[in-house]
């Protein structure tokens, strides 16, 4: 999804006219049909994606408060946003969360994929087991781990207590809560990224390894000199996808910590949700924050395209 091959013009006019020519030119060229085929989807895309995006951008410059007519506000929403301590707290938490989540995802998904790749026995079973958490809805992931990490009735602290390791308040102490949130998101998504890296591993040209072995390279040499450099495009995809996932995190946190303790795990999407749908409602402020989130995601995509293009030119 990250580096998309547009494949524009694959159905070339020359190929078409050649094949119709061979059949004696009897065929009429369909003129209306193509538009009818794309119309339903384009209607839905326009109504539920393009128009809301344009309108949201416009509304970020308006005071839109429930029960009042909207009026032009200039940059007031953005000014209110950058002077809101809660907004900066959400930004800081989001950055902490994204950096921790992405870095650990890259390292652990690569490690898991390398282990799986060289495993012979029960490989399919391990792969399926690692993928199980990916199937579980984020809401349920949050409930599940809230239950496990609960200090009084949770399994983890009961286990730690039994072996004499104390009972940390995983979701009550702010730093532990952020760490727990990162861990839970890793738990829930690692199987997906592992499969992506595994796909990348399987497309590495085996002759590279044979050449290395002829030269007497060790397994470590192979990993550092061949595997990781060849994996670079795949790991780039993992970084992009996990960064976007991290910036969008909200659902499992809603049931894991509710954004607490004291807002320590309130990320940017929850900030938007809270201002848009929890009274007192301030749509303008929420859309201004949305525009900033979009700009961040857009920048990430551009960086991705730039890197992809440089790689293609090299």
């Amino acid at each position: 999804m990250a580096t998309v091959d547009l494949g524009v013009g694959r159905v070339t006019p020359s190929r078409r006219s050649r094949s119709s020519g061979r059949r004696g030119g009897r065929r009429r060229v369909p003129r209306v049909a193509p538009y009818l085929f794309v119309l339903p989807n384009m209607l839905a895309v326009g109504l539920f994606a393009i128009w809301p995006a344009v309108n949201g951008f416009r509304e970020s410059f308006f005071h839109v408060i429930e029960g009042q007519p909207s009026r032009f506000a200039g940059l007031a929403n953005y000014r209110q946003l950058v002077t809101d301590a809660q907004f900066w707290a959400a930004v800081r938490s989001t950055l902490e969360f994204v950096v921790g989540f992405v870095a650990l995802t890259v390292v652990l998904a690569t490690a898991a994929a390398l282990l799986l790749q060289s495993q012979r026995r029960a490989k399919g079973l391990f792969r399926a087991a690692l993928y199980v958490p990916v199937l579980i809805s984020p809401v349920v992931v949050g409930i599940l781990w809230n239950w496990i990490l609960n200090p009084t009735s949770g399994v983890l602290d009961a286990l730690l207590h039994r072996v004499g390791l104390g009972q940390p308040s995983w979701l009550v102490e702010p730093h532990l809560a952020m760490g727990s949130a990162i861990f839970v998101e890793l738990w829930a998504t690692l199987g997906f990224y592992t499969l992506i890296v595994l796909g990348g591993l399987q497309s590495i040209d085996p002759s590279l390894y044979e050449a290395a072995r002829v030269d007497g390279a060790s397994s470590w040499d192979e990993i550092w000199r061949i595997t990781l450099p060849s994996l670079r495009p795949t790991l780039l995809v993992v970084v992009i996808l996990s960064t976007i996932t991290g910036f969008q995190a909200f659902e499992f946190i809603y049931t894991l910590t509710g954004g607490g303790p004291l807002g320590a795990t309130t990320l940017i999407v929850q900030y938007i949700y809270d201002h848009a749908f929890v009274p007192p409602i301030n749509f303008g402020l929420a859309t201004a924050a949305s525009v900033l989130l979009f700009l961040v995601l857009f920048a990430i995509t551009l960086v991705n395209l730039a890197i992809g293009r440089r790689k293609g030119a090299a």
Partner: protein
Amino acid sequence: MSTVPFARTGRRRAGHRPGQPAPTWTSVSGRRPPAPAAVLRTSLLVAASLLAVAPVLWIAVSSFKPLPQLLGDPLSLPSSLSLANYRGGFQQFDFLTYFRNSAIVTVAATLLTLALSATAGYGLAKYNFRGRNGLFVLVLATIMIPIQVILVPIFQVVVDLHLVNSLLGLIIPPAATPTGVFLMRQAFLSIPDELIEAARVDGAGEFRTFWRIVLPNARASLAVLAIISVGWRWNDFIWPLIIAQSPGVYTLPVALGLLTSQQAVPYNFILAMVVASMIPVIVIFLFLQRHVIRGIAMTGLK
């Protein structure tokens, strides 16, 4: 360490190369004992798999515990395998309604996604028309505007359409997905033009050609898209959370999320419903694992 890139389970058993260590070691035929590296690798994989699966198994086991045991003794096994928690959840708290809503939304939205993606993908793959590339780029661009970014304005559109607090409001807006259009377009590109030409020469109309000739040839991609879509819609939370405003239209994730945060339902019932909500997706995965993995290769990497 083997570096043979094997894609299928069948090949690796046969794929023993000369000059490499024997692929299996449990036989009694006097082969070498396992290397320390292999033991370490398998142990790490076992540990990782346990970490992935154990919480799910533990919640499944615990969902049979009565409330006092659940809260008081987290490490114990259930004293009996009573279905009381499941009965209570379904009978006292309307979970049957939430289950039904989730099922309706998942099936209807997936059918709609298949229809929209297949038609648009075909139009973009197999016709030359003015504006085609522009439309395709427009569809792809929407990858960059996920629902979290347009939460407020898309909600306003649904308000204007009077679809708030209705199942249709849960089904229609998420159904048009750029991933689906992209996936189906790729599938149709690989179908030879000659097949379509032949149908036209035989006098079939454009839609008939699509329905009778083209679509059956894209079954595999339709299956992948259906599986992806079912997973998305069954697990959706943020969109149903803002659209479903009364319990009659709650889906399972919304009900579980709200009831948990309000602490309105005893925890043993919540756990039972959590486990019940996981079953359909896990069963589908177990049966269709190969398609799921292929789907990731197709959408994650393309």
